[in-house]
């Protein structure tokens, strides 16, 4: 059976799809605000302090306070901004983050129910397509704000995009070569004996480095470098529009970690009965997110040209070499 988007390996009733998408959406949106407070608390620990611990028990209600504050703020728009694009840019970022959640597999097909949003046969391409679209959000925001800082941020994010995206794709290509499929469930299935991180360690490292750039996280947070260009592309945003950018950052962190887990860390695989699969998936994803936070607490921000030279001179040759070696080994064996 063929759907307009792509060939689907396992098709379920429409209501099941709707329920699944709601569950995934709501579950992840429960996790994302918690991530914001977890990040602040962890960064605090990394700096010998507590982090937020005033709102609610051990500060767990902090995101609620933040969201209420942001939602109560005025929707400000500078006079020089392009109204439509200015309004739609945060929506694009959030949209592309959410839509990538659809392909994250949280478990195999169990009792006729696939524990994933949708299993597209072009999973990798789907991921790259939408993660690239999210950059339109940043570019449009920077350009349509009518502010120099926003524009500089958008320029930087464009420069960042072209320097890491290729090596990110090549890093995943090694896994795709080994698996022989672009579908994410197949990729996880192919790691039954050994997780891909062992044969594809270089691919994993490259993917993670590119993932930091993809999510605009430290040390590659130069599009939003608050010290130099005051939050870059979101300088002119306020209220819930800025909130959606912040939310999208954590959402993308979750998505990129999820993709990394799917491709390199065995996805849902783990000891225990089948119903534990989503738990394993989420646990692995969260531990990668802790790595993101750890790195943020450790490394200083790279300069714009340093990022480009890293992307083009180190990551790209390494990724190419990795994929060549993988191709030769796969062909021979």
């Amino acid at each position, binding site marked *: 059976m063929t759907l307009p988007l792509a060939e689907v390996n396992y098709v379920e009733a429409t209501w099941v799809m709707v329920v699944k998408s709601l569950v995934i959406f709501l579950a992840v949106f429960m996790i994302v605000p918690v991530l914001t407070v977890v990040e602040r608390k962890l960064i*605090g*620990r*990394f*700096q*010998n*302090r*507590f982090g937020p611990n005033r709102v609610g028990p051990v500060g767990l209600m902090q995101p609620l306070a933040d969201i209420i504050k942001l939602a109560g703020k005025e929707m400000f728009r500078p006079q020089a901004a392009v109204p439509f694009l200015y309004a739609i840019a945060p929506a694009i970022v959030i949209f592309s983050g959410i839509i990538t959640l659809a392909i994250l597999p949280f478990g195999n097909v169990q009792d006729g129910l696939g524990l994933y949003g949708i299993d597209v046969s072009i999973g990798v391409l789907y991921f790259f397509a939408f993660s690239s679209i999210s950059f339109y959000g940043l570019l449009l925001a920077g350009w349509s704000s009518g502010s120099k800082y926003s524009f500089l941020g958008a320029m930087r994010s464009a420069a960042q995009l072209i320097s890491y995206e290729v090596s990110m794709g090549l890093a995943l290509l090694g896994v795709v070569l080994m698996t022989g499929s672009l579908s994410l469930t197949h990729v996880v299935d192919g790691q039954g004996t050994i997780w891909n991180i062992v044969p594809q360690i270089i691919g994993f490292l490259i993917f993670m480095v590119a993932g930091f750039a993809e999510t605009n996280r430290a040390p590659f947070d130069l599009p939003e470098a608050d010290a130099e260009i005051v939050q870059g592309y979101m300088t002119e945003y306020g209220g819930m529009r800025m909130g959606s950018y912040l939310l999208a950052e954590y959402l993308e962190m979750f998505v990129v970690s999820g993709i990394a887990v799917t491709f390199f860390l065995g996805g849902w695989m783990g000891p225990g009965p089948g119903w534990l699969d989503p738990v394993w998936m989420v646990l692995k994803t969260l531990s990668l997110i802790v790595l993101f936070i*750890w*790195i943020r*607490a*450790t*490394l200083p921000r790279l300069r714009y040209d340093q990022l480009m*030279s890293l992307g083009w*001179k*180190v990551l790209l040759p*390494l990724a190419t070499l990795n994929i060549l070696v993988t191709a030769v080994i796969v062909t021979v064996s």
Partner: protein
Amino acid sequence: MEAKLNTEKADWTQFPYLEGEQDVISVQRGPKPGGVGGAYRAFGETLRGLRTTFGRVLEGPVTIQYPEEKTPVYPRFRGRHKLHRFEDSGLEKCVGCSLCAAACPADCIRVVAHENDPEHRVSAGERYAEVYEINLSRCIFCGYCEVACPFDAITMGHDYEMSDYNRSDLIFTKEMLLAEPIDRTPLRMEGE
């Protein structure tokens, strides 16, 4: 361009007292950045950085959770003033001499003296302070009043939590200064 110390051409006869004491300057240079070795070193340094920050986690927070936890003060800490009475007779030590007001560089003390009524003595001396006010919004906590006082009637306490909503509430009257302060400032023990 590499910095070089030109020791050959330097005219050391100009500085005879420096004979034999010329500094030997050696510059340590790291390996050149870039290349495979550079990437390897960068990776290693990243791991070292991660270890460093993780060490901070193991150390634990050093924050003092202020309203709940308080930094103990030293015995010599100069906090809010206290006025004293004689312990046996209960009479005020202050005799209204205004030396504290004269010593005060911030001009925040106001004393109005009055003759003691022999029937109902307020202080041990001839006179007593009818009005004794310290404007704590002006006080700089220098402790000169304490030094100036000939009867040790005023001393600096340990209380430092004096914020208020109103400036006029910061003018402390004699009754407030005489009252035992609510004991809420922890004192640092000897050798701590």
